[in-house]
């Protein structure tokens, strides 16, 4: 399509991040460099993950169209490193809980956005061929922002030393869901042969539910003591 179309996709992908950064008060804390540091940690963690995957999970060469559930599950397990990375970011920042969560999530999600969506958008959305997938990709980036905020909040709660005992089980459950969400989604799409729009909708609903539960836990935890 045209540069205009690229502009559309770009605006749809990036502006929610900008709005969140501005309106959440992060800009008032001068948190830009902290976010960049979080992004750098993201890069480091991704590199470690890639090295690990390349070493222990050689490319699965199954028949075309077949889906390797176990292999994908093992790969999703490696995403646990994300949790460690988020914890690392938050442990290095001093401040209020909300502030730590937002800095880690913003930096993390923005780094992901830049690294994994910038180039496909630039290459694809500007080509002659029109495809809805670039719009979908942009919407997907909005969903992943919410996802990472929820995930960072869960990690923050999980690593608190004064965490009440009965919180541990639901938190572990939610963390598990957030780590294996991508794997669940892919299997889901594969089994039910969902269209790309339906898959996106399902993803949005799941992420919404996950973040709402995280918010509830957060609210009850913060205001209980």
């Amino acid at each position: 399509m045209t540069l205009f179309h690229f502009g559309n996709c770009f605006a749809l992908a990036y502006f929610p991040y900008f709005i969140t950064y501005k309106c959440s008060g992060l800009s008032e804390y001068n948190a830009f460099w902290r976010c960049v540091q979080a992004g750098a940690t993201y890069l480091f963690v991704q590199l470690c993950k890639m090295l690990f995957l390349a070493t222990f999970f050689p490319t699965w060469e199954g028949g075309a169209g077949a889906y390797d559930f176990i292999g994908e599950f093992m790969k999703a397990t490696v995403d646990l490193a994300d949790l460690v990375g988020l914890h690392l970011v938050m442990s290095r920042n001093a401040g209020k809980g909300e502030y730590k969560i937002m800095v880690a999530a913003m930096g993390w999600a923005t780094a992901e956005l830049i690294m994994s969506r910038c180039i496909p958008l630039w290459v694809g959305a500007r080509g002659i061929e029109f495809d809805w997938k670039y719009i979908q990709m942009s919407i997907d980036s909005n969903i992943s922002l919410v996802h990472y905020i929820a995930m960072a909040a869960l990690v923050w709660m999980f690593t608190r030393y004064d965490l009440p005992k009965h919180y541990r089980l639901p938190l572990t459950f939610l963390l598990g869901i957030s780590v294996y969400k991508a794997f669940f989604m892919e299997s889901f799409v594969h089994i039910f042969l969902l269209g790309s729009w339906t898959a996106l909708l399902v993803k949005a609903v799941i992420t919404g539910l996950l973040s709402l539960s995280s918010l509830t836990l957060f609210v009850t935890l913060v205001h209980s003591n």
Partner: protein
Amino acid sequence: MLEEAGEEVLGSVLLKASCLPLSFLLVLPAVLLLLLGPPPASAAHEFTVYRMQQYELGGQPYGTRNAVLNTEARTVEADVLSRRCVMMRLMDFSYEQYQKALRQSAGAVVIILPQSMLSVPQDVIRQFMEREPEMLAMETIVPVYFAEEDDELLSIYEQTQAASASQGSASAAEVLLHTATANGFQMVTSGAQSKAISDWQITSVEGRLTGLGGEDLPTIVIVAHYDSFGVAPWLSHGADSNGSGVSVLLELARLFSRLYTYKRTHAGYNLLFFASGGGKFNYQGTKRWLEDNLDHTDSSLLQDNVAFVLCLDTLGRGNSLHLHVSKPPKEGTLQYAFLKELELVVASQFPEVKFSMVHKKINLAEDMLAWEHERFAIRRLPAFTVSHLESHRDGLRNSIMDVRSAAGARVNSQILTRNTRIIIEALTRVIYNLTGKGVPADLQVFTEQMVSKCEPAGSVLIQQEQMESVMDWLTSQPRAAQLVDKDSTFINTLEYYMSRYLKDVKQHHIKADKRDPEFVFYDQLKQVMNAYRVKPAIFDLLLALCIAAYLGIAYVAVQHFSLLYKLVRRVSFKSKQQ
């Protein structure tokens, strides 16, 4: 892949020098990408297209003048066709619509042909055949392409047709909805602009059988041009014109080579076989072959004592045969004898065949010669053409519809064999003077009993299977003059086949004159066309509005996040108090 590699590189750099300004690292690839041009996207559909002829003959340009295409597709139903690529199907092709499209200055025309001509009704084939020369003669600036239909292309055509038809009579809302749901297609060819091929060589192949007895024997020349012609060179298979002529020529060469190996049947005539190239371009190969043989050489079979020249053209269909002459042969000459023998053989052995002589004077004022024998007649050699067509203007001679098997017009190997039989019976009667020796008219020479004295007997019979396989070989590839160069497998096979039976087989090459070329061919005749799915500009505008609205809602939602926070707090406290 790209992003992963990028990540890896970035990551490793980061490990070494984590203090480097990270923003710079992130911006750098983006800047690099900005400098590069827009990338080629993966196409929705990629298909092969064959371009219309482009050539000049005697300074006169024919066919399309252009090869580059990058426009949006429409069908003829659309109101505005200017600078659009007009798609048509052969099934509902009409010359008026084609002309209309070109008059409205369409950007290009793509004509979709069905995969097999068998499914096309005969009248459509006939009609298209008649229009082909007109399409070539008309001044066509824009490119015209032919494509073979497949499911994808058909679906593109149907979507385009739906879009083109609904364009005129719809309300604004309908049009807006349509832009979001329907697809437009941008047709793009990958090749460069067409340019003249310099120093193109037209190849002809000749071979001979020398007669028995002395130096100054009369020579019979048997000629057929091998090249095919149609509105698109890559699609011209030329089954009847002139695959049939070549296969008859090769069969005659085979049979006479057998007869000439035995002393008893070795006749006192030289036989010269010539498979000429460039026949569809005013018989260029024949013309220069004659010039070289008559003007530039001292000794040639053509220079002295040519009995007659027999040209073979379109012999694969129908139940009639015509002997085309430019001057009725005089009594007492060998050509007259051959004419009489032909009449005799047809009348006594093949009564179902209608035979007649067609007399047409050479019209030197016309651009194109009618038949190949006229090239010889101009040089005062006695010549005629045998064909089942009554007129040289028949569209069949220059059509892409002249394929091996089309509906109702199949090149029939039985008819081909029969015509071969008629010609060879008449030829042997002339060569061995059988009528003069009192052989009855209804005696067939090439039958089992007659040739049983020869060893091996079967080889002197006309072999229908062999002729059929020769026809299969001839029609398996397009033999347009622009596509057959001197190293092509076609020429090599033809030369090999002829050298199995004939002596002194050699190629004859001609090149157009540098300063005043008789013919100029152009390249880019076969290309890959991409159909990209696109949306109109109004769609982007609409999308921008939607995105702006969405961002507005997102802004309000983030601003008032505290409302949600408070709500959740209240609900959770309520549940705790209970």
